[in-house]
């Protein structure tokens, strides 16, 4: 199939940037979206042009490195997948495809479609851990049985890949789904209780300082999340935060 691509090009963080049109022909429906961009880039390089920069690594939907806002949606039109798992068969011959970087003040553009998501890391530095040293004589893993329901819910929250689709999709650029997933993972486990109060206060404080917007419960994040992280996590974080604020 033949496509028209409208791609955001921006030389570096201080450049203003603009949409640029590209034509690409003979795209196979079996290609992944990123493979289609690979083909475009090879053409650009051979023509002597600058290839389109985009983030990617594992190309199997788990590392969270790939991003892209495709036709107005994070990770494109399909559900439950990252951009690297999006296949060209989801598009038709003659389509025009808009490709933009994830947009948020807290995700500044580095180049073209590559954005800086280190704000996510900083939120995690503020409290996304359980303080336990490596010693080799930690208590036995089966010393505390954990109710399967809680363990599974904790796992579901922990499957977040930190891609930032929630922020990109949210009309407010809110990072609540991401932060709440981490808060929930630990809040649901007995190991996480000791530091629960400080964790949620510190992580939310950092989240606010990074310049993410507020949650208005539109639910866009949950729909666009490649891992289906549930809005319940946000409710849980709100509760944890309220409890922690009343305590502290």
């Amino acid at each position, binding site marked *: 199939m033949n496509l028209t691509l*409208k791609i*955001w090009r921006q030389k570096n963080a201080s450049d203003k*940037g603009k*949409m640029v049109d590209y034509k690409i022909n003979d795209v196979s429906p079996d290609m992944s979206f990123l493979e289609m961009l690979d083909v475009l880039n090879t053409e650009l390089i051979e023509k002597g042009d600058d290839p389109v920069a985009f983030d990617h690594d594992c190309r199997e939907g788990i590392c969270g490195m790939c991003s892209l*806002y495709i*036709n*107005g*949606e994070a990770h494109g*039109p399909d559900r439950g997948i990252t951009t690297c798992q999006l296949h060209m068969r989801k598009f038709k011959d003659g389509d025009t495809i*808009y490709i*933009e970087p994830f*947009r*948020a*003040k*807290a995700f500044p*553009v580095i180049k073209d479609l590559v954005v800086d998501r280190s704000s996510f890391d900083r939120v995690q530095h503020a409290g996304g851990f359980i303080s336990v040293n490596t010693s080799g004589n930690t208590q036995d893993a089966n010393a505390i049985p954990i109710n399967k329901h809680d363990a599974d819910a904790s796992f579901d929250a922990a499957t977040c890949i930190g891609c930032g689709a929630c922020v990109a*999709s949210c*009309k*407010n*650029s*809110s990072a*609540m789904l991401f932060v709440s997933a981490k808060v929930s993972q630990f809040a649901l486990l007995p190991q996480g209780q000791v530091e629960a109060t400080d964790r949620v206060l510190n992580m*939310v*404080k950092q*989240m*606010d300082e990074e*310049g*993410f*917007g*507020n*949650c*208005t*419960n*539109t*639910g*866009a994040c949950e*729909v*666009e999340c490649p891992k289906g992280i549930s*809005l*319940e996590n*946000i*409710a*849980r*974080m*709100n*509760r*944890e*935060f*309220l409890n922690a*604020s009343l305590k502290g």
Partner: protein
Amino acid sequence: MSGFLKSSIGRKIAMALSALFLMIFLLQHFAINITSVFSESLFNELSHFMGTNPVVQFALQPILIFGVIFHFVMGFVLEIKNKGARNVKYVKNHGAANSSWMSRNMIWSGLVILAFIVLHFIDFWFPEINHKYIEFLPEDPNRYYHEVVEKFHSPIRVGAYVVAFVLLAMHLLHGFSSAFQSVGANNKYTRGLKGFGKAYAILIPLGFIFIALFHHINGH
């Protein structure tokens, strides 16, 4: 607690609590208004009570006004902050793919409701205040019903009323369950609550519209 109200979640919770308060007020308001449809005397009695009871007038009324002002001021503050969290807009954004129109446009439905409240103040509340506390006109416990019927005589007023309540329904369709989500309610009752919220969001505004049309049509 000042730190709490500076945090994103604290503000959200405050927004939700003020919303829950306003929803309770709305229910109470509706309960009184609907009596006008079937009992002139009951409506007059209740209105007289509300209009003259000192607890209602000097305790609840200021709280209500504070609640309304807090809700919309906080709404604006959040909207401005949220807009600022994305400094470069998308060229193409397909919001309908992942969220409802209502949820994305609370500020607009809110503004229409705010405009209506302003009108409502000018139309109803200022004359009332004037009547009671400025000109100290004599209180007639039976004046309320006739005043209401008189007001709904105007098709323009009824039209504005209908538009405002349609927008209120939309505001509530998102707002009701959103308020519970914001305060962290999430348990086995959540689903039931969502259903209830939808019913509330549609039936209460519909009821207000019904009252307006009822009096408009039968008031001659």
